[in-house]
């Protein structure tokens, strides 16, 4: 089985991460921001997997499982915040939630 070169996998991870970051920066809907964060997390997971495969170690896969767990927790909290936000402010626009300032 011919291995995919690590550079490809890392390049894909970098592209995914950049896409996710841009999503976080430009999206206004909280749901999409959360989805973008998810993309970023998975990009990091992909990088771990690629590195684990390159050196033939299990650590990369362990870390990915960790990231999955963290992502699940993050989404549950994030969605709860989104729900609350909808109920209190009547909007999911992230720019509307700018009360926490001087």
């Amino acid at each position, binding site marked *: 089985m011919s291995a995919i070169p690590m550079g490809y996998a890392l390049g894909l991870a970098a592209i995914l991460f950049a896409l996710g*970051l841009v999503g*976080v*920066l430009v999206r206004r809907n909280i749901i999409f921001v959360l989805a973008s964060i998810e993309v970023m997390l998975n990009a990091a997971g992909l990088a771990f997997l690629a590195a684990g495969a390159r050196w033939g170690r299990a650590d990369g896969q362990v870390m990915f499982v960790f990231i999955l767990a963290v992502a699940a927790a993050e989404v549950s909290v994030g969605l709860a915040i989104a729900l609350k936000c909808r109920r209190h402010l009547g909007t999911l626009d*992230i720019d509307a939630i700018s*009360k926490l*300032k*001087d």
Partner: protein
Amino acid sequence: MHAVLPFVPFFPMVAFAVLALAGGRMAPRIIAITGVAPTALSALLTLITTGAFLGAPPDGRVLSVSFWTWVHIGGFAPKIAFYLDPLSLVMMLVVTFVGSLILLYSVEFMKGQEGYRRFFAYMNLFIGSMLILVLSSDLLFLLVGWEGVGLSSYLLIGFWYGDPANGAAARKAFIVTRVGDTALLVGLLLIFTQLGSLDIQNTMGSAQAEWARGSGMATAAALLILSGAIGKSAQLPLQTWLPDAMAGPTPVSALIHAATMVTAGVYLVARTHVVFDLAPAAQMVTAIIGAATLLYAGLSALAQTDIKRVLAYSTISQIGYMFLALGVGAWSAAIFHLMAHAFFKALLFLAAGLVIKAMGEEHDIRRMGGLRKDLPIVFWTFLIGAASLAAFPLVTAGFFSKDLVVDLTLSSQRGNLFLWVVAVVGALVTSLYAFRVVFLVFFGDPQSTLPRSTSPQERRGRGFGKASVVPLLVLATLAVAGGWMQLPRQWGGPSAFTDFLQPVLPAPATRVGGFAESAAPQVIVAVISVAAIYLSYLLFARRPAVVAGVAEHPLFQRLSNLALSGWGFDRLYGAVFVTPFLWLTRGGRGDVIDAGVSTIAWLARLLQRLLRRSQSGRLRYYVAAASFGVIAFIAVGILR
């Protein structure tokens, strides 16, 4: 007995803690019980202890209870310990009994007032601190009680903190007594460095062994202790705080003047009398201060128009008598007068409180009059108190105690004719001002209409129930009968009080023969105090027109204004200390050090103004900033 003693100061302190920490909504009834019962219990324990003491042989009347060593640094090991001897016992009796009577009185007097619970908490702290002061066996532990008394007096004088004037009076009391306290602290340090201990009994013993009579060290120590005593006991020149301390509620004045606070100085000097014995110069100073104060305050009291201020100056004057007695070495006479004074002064204040209440918070005695019929019980008790204050012969406690003081002023070897004359003139002035109040308030025509109330319900509503009247009656009894245990030596009667104190406070060496030993001085004093009462009757009740006529003379008016303001001491201190101090602080406001500090503040404010721009509340900016920051760091890490 060992087991009982610690509970005496413990009970009021526990009451204070409970009342202070309980917070929230305690029912007034519960507050009253928590506030009064522990001190009453202490009084009961004191009574039991007294019984045991009287049963013991004279040299077995000592009790010491040691708890633990406070700190232990090198040779410095002050103890938390109580020491009870006849002197402490007398003080303990006065504090607990008069204290609990005043607390009982306050139950009704303060009813419905804002801060009922706070009031009882502070009062208990006051009594507890005073008990620690009189029972402590170590000068450092004594200082704890001393400062506790100062603190609670501050809290109570400023009890009605809503009025800034009351807060100012409280601060004044605290700061002026602080001058004396500082001197006392220096005195304690001197004693410690010279004698290596602060335990009272050890210190007194080694002072006697190491310091020669009249040596500089003994004089310095005695003068420093005296300064502390002067501050607390409101003697010249630190007396200015006491008249202003009338800003507090009347029961507080009664407590400050009778049971706690001002008597602390007298107790301290009596407690350390060995040092004073070694320093005749300091003792002379004590006597002169006492004599000057008793005249000064007596003359001021004569001109006061506020009933409470008359009593305040009268206290200063009577404490002056005690200092005079201490100054001539008549230690037990001073304590005897302290006790008698506690009874009649508490009585006078409590009665005055009821008068003021009945008049609808009117303090001015010129606007009172004819209250004899409206307030019969208050009138009779006040009359007894005033008679005791004026040393009405043969009956009152004040007569026996003051007679002892005045007698020893002349017959003690440390006393002299000059001091005696001052004391006698003081007795004349005392009778004059005491009965001036009686005649102006209770006799004559009503100057302003008393809001009359005839129904018992209304009367109780103004604080005339049992709890107000019983303390008056008990104190009136004590103000008369409290002196019968000690009859003048010329009469050859019992001298139980001085005998009881003899092991602690030895009687002064007296002159033999001559004028001093004859009955003449005693008769002169008695005649003068009665004659002064009659003079007071003539001036203030029979022919008020004469006084009014003299009062219009401009010279007299200026004199009386001067006396009214306490002979200008406040103005003098204002000009000499307060104004220069304020000027200095104002001048120091913009100096170099201040400029440095303000620059730092200015810089911080500038940075803050810049940084607050970055906090917009927009999440995307934060994310962008964080990512660019991370990218920048990574870039630096790679490219370096």
